[in-house]
């Protein structure tokens, strides 16, 4: 066990935890942030995507000890009031079907838009290819990302 300090959704957190524990379980079980989902546990599906210092990573294979001292953003921290363009667009387009993969989809979409304010269809396909959706909502995801990009641009 070790003491690991993190900034999670802009709040400092201190965990007494085995450093090899996947970040996903630290978030879900120790911090109660259950928006981030367990999908495959092997970085193959993207359901567990969160941001570490702004970069999208798969929390199911990331040892919490490897991200000590970083800033973590989960789906709960994307905005305080559902005002993030990705959240707005997801609601507007009604993207989810079963919804299980959507927190991961939204975190990847937010990371894409942070790096590319005006992504093409190809950019979206490249960025989102690691996030699987068994309901097949891919067309709505793409539409919502274009809408979120437009919302973000018009807000500037």
């Amino acid at each position, binding site marked *: 066990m070790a003491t690991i300090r993190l900034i999670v959704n802009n709040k400092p957190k201190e965990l007494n935890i085995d450093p090899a524990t996947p970040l996903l379980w630290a978030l879900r079980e120790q911090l109660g942030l259950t928006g981030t989902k367990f999908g495959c546990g092997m970085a193959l599906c993207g359901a567990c995507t969160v941001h570490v210092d702004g970069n999208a990573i*798969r929390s199911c294979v*990331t*040892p919490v000890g490897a991200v000590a001292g970083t800033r973590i953003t989960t789906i709960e921290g994307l905005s305080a009031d559902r005002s993030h363009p990705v959240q707005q667009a997801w609601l507007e387009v009604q993207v989810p079907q079963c919804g299980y993969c959507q927190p991961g989809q939204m975190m990847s979409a937010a990371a894409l838009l942070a790096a590319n304010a005006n*992504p093409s269809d190809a950019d979206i396909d490249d960025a989102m*290819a*690691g996030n699987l959706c068994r309901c097949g909502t891919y067309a709505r995801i793409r539409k919502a990302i274009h809408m979120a990009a437009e919302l973000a641009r018009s807000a500037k």
Partner: protein
Amino acid sequence: MTSRTQPRVLLFACAAMLTLLAGIVQLSPRASARGQASPGDNEKSMRAFRAVASVLTSPRCLNCHVPGDSPLQGDDNHPHAMNVKRGLDGRGTPAMRCTNCHQATNSSQLHAPPGRPDWRLPPPSMPLVWKGLSIAGICRALKDPATNAGMTTSKLIEHVSEDPFVNWAWNPGPGRTVPPLSHDEFVSRFKEWIETGAACPE
């Protein structure tokens, strides 16, 4: 000196010079690297490179030394799942960076991502392509500063000896084969190839 002793002295002097020259040629692997290799050295060098190539063409090396934008994976060199792309810096595209999934260490789970710090492909500006080349082609690509990231022979030796990415090939995580030579043997054959003139197979 009498006229009868002069030829004997000359003969001795010539024999001594020939012995000296033979010694220089034999003891001079670095001379062979400058293009003065003996036919024997050339054969030895090509044999050493064929051993080196057995490592370079192993999936652990070849899967990322690829033409185009997409890495390969697995022992059968299949295209990397998830439409992974090289990106502008070799580290993937926005929101699909290599380090999204590849951590600083290997995952202990079968089929989960391998890892080491700063997992990446060679950048598009210097893709270090080996896939699709013959062994002779790989050899030439490895020697040419235009296709080997400007590495000198001493840098090449340092790279194969110490680079953590090279070393990862012998510690690739569960379910992945390792190259056919040990790392020590690989480095030894690599040095032999360089020291015998870095000859490329035909």
